[in-house]
């Protein structure tokens, strides 16, 4: 075992040599900032975004705990904290946003064959392949297990027909992990399989969906006689529901961090917005009604942040309480954006044109985007169902 102080020194030096200046705190603001999702279709406004991803990917530090044979960093928990601390110290940007890392990789590690892990994990970790999630269908939202996309067994391959919806960034993704029905006669939960599909296969097509925010982060994805080799099946045929649920827990765990102001959204601080637009008197937000609403929200957010920390300290792996975090994370994010636009006033509902600040126009759209937070990844009502049944044991 390597000495931790030595490791810290190594990390520090490596970051110093390898983390480009534009990827650190205090970067030149004129350099455009990329949202890096990797993949074959990736485009970079700043070439250093790609360089930073390649270097971190080669070290396996985009998934530092995964073992080296799968392309991970092979680090122990203490070493990961050191890596995080040292990255934080220089304000290093995360190199990669990835559904592959957040959702698929944990499931591959648990359910994949050795061959599947070796084939897919390194490409996820290096950001070479961008994944999307094929779960919901037009007729299967909250009742996900009623899904109808069909995969017929055709010897050494499946023939897939059907339609997925709400596939995030399907138009930009290289591969999709999809739930398909392989057992049409089995009870609904027992006829589902978990399948990996290359989006370049003949018969796969996508179409973006425009949201109320004006943006199109989601697509419809169509499968028309798509031939998928059987080696792409994860777990047993018709046993995909357990994998689907495990993945949902990972998805919820990562979505839950959205409830903290520090972790996402417009990145703007509610209190400073309120002081700027409403005004302040002796350092206090001058309107008592807004101030008390903001305080109530901040108190909840503080307690929620402590709860995320407690779950981590208790070594909480993905569990039914992930539903609680997903529920609160998304509801808090909605509430915070409601408070932000209210505090911004008329400018908080700005849509377009030169009369408004870009920040305010972005806020309007960010606020509308949050309305999806309590729907995607299982609605708030579904989370409440999960808690009442699986945590509290209330009868069905």
């Amino acid at each position, binding site marked *: 075992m390597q000495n931790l102080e030595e490791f810290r020194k190594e990390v520090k030096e490596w970051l110093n040599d390898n983390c480009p200046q534009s990827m650190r705190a205090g970067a030149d603001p004129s350099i455009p900032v990329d949202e890096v999702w990797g993949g074959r279709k990736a485009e970079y406004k700043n070439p250093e975004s790609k360089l930073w991803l390649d270097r971190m990917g080669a070290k396996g530090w985009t998934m530092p705990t995964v073992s080296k044979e799968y392309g991970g960093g092979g680090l122990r928990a203490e070493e990961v904290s050191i890596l995080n601390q040292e990255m934080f110290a220089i304000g290093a940007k995360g190199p990669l946003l990835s559904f592959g890392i957040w959702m698929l990789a944990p499931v591959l590690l648990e359910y994949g064959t050795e061959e599947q892990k070796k084939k897919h994990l390194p490409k996820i970790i290096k950001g070479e392949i961008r994944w999307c999630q094929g779960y919901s269908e037009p007729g299967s939202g909250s009742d996900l297990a009623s899904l109808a996309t069909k995969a017929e067994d055709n010897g050494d391959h499946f023939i897939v027909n059907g339609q997925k919806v709400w596939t995030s960034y399907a138009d930009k993704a290289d591969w999709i992990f999809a739930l398909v029905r392989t057992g049409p006669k089995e009870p609904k939960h027992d006829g589902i399989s978990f399948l990996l599909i290359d989006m370049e296969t003949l018969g796969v097509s996508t179409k973006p969906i425009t949201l109320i925010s004006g943006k199109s982060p989601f697509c419809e994805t169509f499968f028309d006689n798509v031939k998928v080799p059987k080696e792409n099946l994860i777990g047993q045929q018709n046993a995909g529901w357990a994998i689907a649920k495990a993945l949902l827990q990972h998805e919820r765990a990562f979505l839950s961090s959205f409830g903290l102001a520090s972790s996402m959204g417009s990145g703007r601080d509610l*209190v400073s917005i*309120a002081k700027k637009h409403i005004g302040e008197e002796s*350092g*206090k*937000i001058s309107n008592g009604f807004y*101030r*008390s609403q*903001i*305080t*109530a929200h*901040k*108190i*909840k957010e*503080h*307690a*929620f942040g*402590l*709860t995320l*920390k*407690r779950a981590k*300290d*208790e070594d909480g792996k993905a569990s039914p*309480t992930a539903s*609680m975090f997903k*529920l*609160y994370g998304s509801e808090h994010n909605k509430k915070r954006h409601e408070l932000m636009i209210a505090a911004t006033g008329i400018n908080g509902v700005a849509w377009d044109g030169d009369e408004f600040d870009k920040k305010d126009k972005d806020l309007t759209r960010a606020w509308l985007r949050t309305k999806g937070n309590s729907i995607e990844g299982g609605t708030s*009502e579904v*989370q*409440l*169902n999960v*808690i*009442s*049944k699986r*945590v*509290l*044991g*209330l*009868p*069905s």
Partner: protein
Amino acid sequence: MKLILNEEQQFLKDTARDFAKERTPVNHFRSLRDNKSETLWDKDIWQEMVKLGWSGILIPEEFGGSNFGVAGISVILQECGKTLTPSPLFSTGVIGAYAISNFGTQEQKEKYLPKITNGDITTALAIDESSHHDPAKTLLKAKLSDDHYVLNGKKIFVIDGASADILIVLTRTSGNSGDLAGLTLFIVEADTPGINKIKLDMADSRNYANIEFNNVESSKGNILGTLEAGGESVERILDIGRIAMSAEMLGNAEAAFETTIEYLKQRKQFGVLIGTFQALQHRAAEMFCEIELTKSAVMAAMHGADENSNELQRLSSLAKTVAGETLHLVTNEAIQMHGGIGVTDEYDLGFYIKRSRVAEQIFGSSAFHSERYANLSGF
């Protein structure tokens, strides 16, 4: 700071859980109330708690205590809160023990701490003077006269004040109402001439008193902490009390919630268990989440106290606000979900809602602490 219990704290919690279950189930409190017990807590039960070492948890070992810290006493109160165990543990084992251990002179420590550890005396903090907690507004006057002070004024809602042997009294030695400066704490023995205790009858049937001070003489040696700096020390003492009270309130909420979940699993209407109704399931799930948030806030605050966090005031106000709101919600919902039986005196839930609303007032309500949190955070 890790938001988990260490082995010692877990052991204290387990011991307290067993004690509350076996020695002080809710019926214990019911019989004290029904029999109009003088102190509204049981002297023998208190001595059993003393024997378990609970009165000395915040007291250094040299004075017979165990120095297990705020987290240690908080988890005990949490478990005792589950069965509404009445005892002077909060007023004595938290407030008296902490105040004298941290702000007392060597002489005061030697005089009082061993007696607190041994269960020979109980203490009470005399602080409030009006219907809303606000220490800065203290008016009770302590005036220097030759070599001693003379106290005049009235304290209200003194927890365990009806039976306490020792009173810790917040007085004004200078300045005006609203100033935290000019406040001084005194240790006053409750049988000093000029003290008049008026027992209160509160909704939660616990031990409280209003206390009048008519020309009560107290020597300079009875000042606790520094003259004129009582505002600062009392804030610290109150924060520890708020955290411990939040833990007790968390225990109250956990028990009322558990009772309700059990009821949803056995009560039938329309031929089915009422726990199958989504209208109730979702509200139950929301309560579960609120309790989880409260656990985290209380945990962070009690560890913050033991680790001398510079965030202690915010954490204390966070815990008291969240615990107050959660217990408020849970007691209301518990009664509603139980239906008619929930509003009968025969059923225990009424005790929880009555205790809830009194506990919410202790050392500042959620409104007080939200405001304090906002001020401390610069909102």
